[in-house]
């Protein structure tokens, strides 16, 4: 049964693997790379914030840390602008995790919207530090070694590395969801005091989840730095990034496994595509906003949960196959 249950992942994965082989237009593989980067970030973000209910709006700290780690290391170690930089991607993730520990120690002492705002505040502290300190290059940012590859297949390695990060983040998120640790996170979301009373070491669990979620986001940041070739503090420590990945996860379905993936894929692609198509005026903002509004109002629990509920109703009506929900999809949202 479990083989069948997860069998649908395979064709989806196949589509992603085959996509750059079929799609030779770099415009769309570029959108693909950005979409994958956001999918990785949203999934990793959701692994902590979705499961625990602690909405972290400072995840750009991890992203920017990864990007700066990549830029500083490849400049100081004189890594040539070739594939060698990719080996530093996990290092970006690790440094992001290291940064996450003090971040979490401060922020995780408070709950709910106070937590949300404290993460925003810490985000700004880090962003403004990157602007004010000299080793980060200040407002001029940092330039990465020029990659001499020509456009033919330039995107391909980035695409597959990003896909690798997404798969990693999804598997990790899945493993966490299935583990005792994941259940403890969910217990914290449902009732933290009660969880604590039942013997869950809530602070340790929260800090572990928080730190774990930094890894993939940091890797995405590092990869982004190589891909774009030049980083500026306001673009890698970007408040819109914080909002975007949270929106993507919520849009798809907060706390679900598939939701953030779907949310990031749809929203990032749609935004890039609409900007490209309707950019002669600000009309694209209106269209994007209106579409967003319609979807949110019709699927208030996120797309994934909406589809699932639709199916449940349908299946209850048509046959009596009403097995309990797949835990990876259920639980939906409630903070």
């Amino acid at each position, binding site marked *: 049964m479990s083989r069948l249950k997860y069998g649908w992942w395979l*064709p989806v994965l196949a589509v992603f693997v085959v996509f750059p082989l079929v799609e030779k*237009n770099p*415009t769309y593989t570029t959108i693909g790379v950005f979409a994958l980067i956001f999918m990785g970030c949203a999934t990793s973000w959701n692994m902590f914030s979705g499961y625990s209910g602690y909405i972290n709006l400072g995840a750009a700290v991890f992203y920017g840390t990864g990007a700066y780690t990549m830029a500083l290391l490849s400049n100081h170690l004189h890594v040539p602008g070739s594939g060698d930089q990719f080996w530093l991607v996990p290092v970006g993730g690790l440094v992001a995790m290291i940064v996450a520990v003090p971040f979490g120690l401060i922020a995780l002492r408070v709950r709910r919207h106070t937590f949300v705002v404290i993460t925003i505040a810490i985000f700004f502290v880090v962003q403004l530090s990157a602007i004010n300190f000299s080793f980060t290059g200040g407002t001029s940012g940092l330039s990465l070694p*020029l990659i001499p590859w020509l456009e033919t297949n330039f995107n391909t390695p980035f695409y597959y590395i990003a896909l690798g990060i997404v798969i990693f983040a999804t598997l990790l998120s899945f493993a966490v969801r299935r583990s005792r640790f994941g259940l403890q996170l969910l217990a914290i979301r449902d009732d933290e005091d009660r969880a604590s009373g039942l013997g869950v070491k809530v602070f340790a669990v929260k800090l572990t989840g928080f730190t774990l979620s930094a890894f993939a986001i940091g890797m995405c940041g590092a990869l982004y730095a190589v891909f774009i070739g030049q980083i500026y503090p306001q673009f890698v420590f970007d408040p819109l990034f914080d909002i975007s990945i949270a929106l993507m996860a919520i849009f798809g379905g907060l706390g679900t496994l598939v939701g953030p993936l*779907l949310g990031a894929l749809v929203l990032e*692609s749609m935004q890039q595509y609409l900007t490209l198509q309707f*950019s*002669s005026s600000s009309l694209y903002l209106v269209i994007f906003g209106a579409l967003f509004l319609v979807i949110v109002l019709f699927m208030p629990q996120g797309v994934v949960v909406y589809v699932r509920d639709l199916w449940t109703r349908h299946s209850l009506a048509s046959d009596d196959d009403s097995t309990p929900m797949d835990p990876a999809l259920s639980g939906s949202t409630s903070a």
Partner: protein
Amino acid sequence: MRGKRKLFRALSVTSVLVASLFTVATSSGASSSGSIAKGQPVLIGASLSLTGEFSADGTAFQAGYNLWAADQNAKGGLLGHQIKLKIISDASSPTQVITNYQSLISTDHVNLTFGPFSSLLTLPAAKAVNRYGYAMVEGAGGAPSIFQSGLKNVFDAALPVADGLVPFAKWIASLPASQRPKTIAYVTSNDPFTEPQIPVAAKIIKAAGVKTVYNKVFAAEVTDYTPIADEVAAANAQVVVLGSVDVPTVSSFMQAFEQAHYNPKAFIATAGPDQGTTFLKAVGSTYANGVMVPNAWFGGSKNAESVKMVSEYIKKYGGTASGVNADVAEAYAVGQVITAAVKATGGFSNAKIITYLHSGVTIQSVLGAVKFNSLGENNQPTAFTFQWQGTKFVEVNPTTDPGATKILYPKPAWKA
């Protein structure tokens, strides 16, 4: 379980649909062969920030590009091909700018590319375009980092940023001792465009014996400029040099100065006052009197190319010569550089254009002579200082220039 499988199948179908959304226009290979079939237009692509942080400048650049294309088409286009511009917006996002240029080259098959607005976006864009072997001639990416990046395909037609304040500094130094100011204040936002300009000017001015009484950097993202402006006013320097990137900063400082009843003998801002009517509208037309700005171009330029462009601009958009944003000319010059390169190389091959522009040729443009060094910097333009005198925007520096108007010094009281 049957039901759930069906659901999952539905989901995967959705994913496939989303993925195939992008597979619609599958085609690749940019046409860098350099030849265009007879009767076909030449397609030029650019990404500009029509919304977001840089949108005010982005729209002015758009006007400049369009104006150039219309003029050149009236003259028969490029090598007999009519010019078609494809301008798309990047919403001031570095992510979008990369997608946009790739789309312009791969999907729209543009023959040539023009630069985006702001150094912040130019560098990522130039790196992306470089991979296709395309040249990127631009008019708004003069930060030193661009020329240190090792890119061979970037050409900035505008003035290199760091030297902007030099004529102003030299003018201060050249004043007779009796008129020369005794004190000066520097206040600049932390931005790659403004910060490099201050030390260059300060060195010259200091050598002339003018005392620096205030020198601070302020955060670009500050909410409220009044305390900084009040502090500058309290320092009571005779000259203020403001490192600004946009109109709101300059207008806030001017407002605060006036409210503090502080009127320096000279006031220069690195950017903002060069935005023509946009500037006048924001600060109020009577307040601009005496405000200076460094640049390579202004609407009243006597340069024949420029005079023509300005008259066409006014015909199309109305207003006066003083009201033309310098961004328009910078964008227009980009077109002229390309015109010269295409004519000289006899085709649209980007490789040949890059070689040609690196060959040390001098090209005439609305900005004056343009000549690129090995890094793609234009080392020809003379920096000028311009001043608002009433609602007229005039050249005042270098004073030796035949086109220079007498400088309004000391600056009249605000609003006078």
